[in-house]
């Protein structure tokens, strides 16, 4: 085996550097190519949150003829809402269990003045405010009170990634 002089050591170092550059370039190129797919997946989840909000706004609570969000606003502000609170929570949890994307949680919150109504599914998932990946749809429900006062109750529906333990 030929003995390595100073020039030989420099050549070996240059080749080792090129090898490291090759590995790094491969890692970066492959990691970068995943970005469009991740972005498309996020756009789909954004769309899912929009659809979930609209579904809660339009679909009725069985067996009543009132939508989920309207029933929730009534529970928040009226003394005698059409849908009783426990029935509404149970029905909403069932709907979220059916409609929520896998590996994601969903939270609904309505607030008006000091009154607050919140629900999240699965139980204990929290509201997802600080979640790394969350898709939020905000809107409002219009409600006419007994005195004829017409108010808009702000609504937030949030889909968020369940944090792994």
């Amino acid at each position, binding site marked *: 085996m030929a003995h390595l002089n100073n020039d030989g050591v420099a050549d070996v170092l240059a080749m080792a550097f090129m090898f490291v550059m090759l590995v790094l370039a*491969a890692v970066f190129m492959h990691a970068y190519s995943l970005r469009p797919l991740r972005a*498309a997946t996020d756009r789909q989840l954004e769309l899912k949150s929009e659809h979930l909000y609209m*579904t809660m706004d339009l679909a009725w609570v069985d067996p009543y003829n009132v939508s989920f969000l309207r029933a929730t606003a009534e529970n928040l502000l009226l003394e005698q809402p059409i849908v009783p609170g426990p029935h509404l929570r149970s029905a909403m949890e069932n709907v979220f269990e059916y409609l929520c994307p896998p590996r994601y949680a969903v939270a609904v919150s309505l607030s008006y003045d000091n009154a607050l109504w919140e629900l999240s599914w699965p139980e204990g998932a929290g509201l997802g405010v600080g979640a790394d990946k969350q898709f939020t749809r905000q809107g409002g429900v219009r409600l006419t009170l007994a005195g004829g006062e017409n108010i808009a109750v702000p609504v937030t529906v949030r889909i968020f990634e369940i944090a792994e333990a």
Partner: protein
Amino acid sequence: MTLTQILKTLVTCILVISFLLVTVSAYQQHRTLSELAELSDATSSIATRLSVDELAYVDNGGKLHMYTLDPSKLEGLSAQWEIGGENFEFQVSVRYEAGGERVLGPYGSIPPEGKARCSFTVANALYENDRFLPAKLSVIVWRT
């Protein structure tokens, strides 16, 4: 040429060939993933158009109810659309719960084997028996 020079030349050649292979492979992967992302966006477009237009319920007064599906529109649905200059085919089904899960469909073409497909499910309301029910609209889309 000494043995050392031959080894150095050989290693350099191997590194250059490896770099070219990695670049070509990354480019091919990027192209494949970009095509999948485009398919995913086309799927979202199809699901949206179905929800707000093609399958949307129209009441007796002629009012269009976006995000509310009309089951009677499923059967006459055309399952081949052009989006952004590309042709896509799809299969659609609607699921809802009424004393157990019920499935409407699938309607449209049969998904082909060996082609990239994208499936997407979104929530919608469903107008059924004079009630608005929570439901899931599922679409499977592929390039024609």
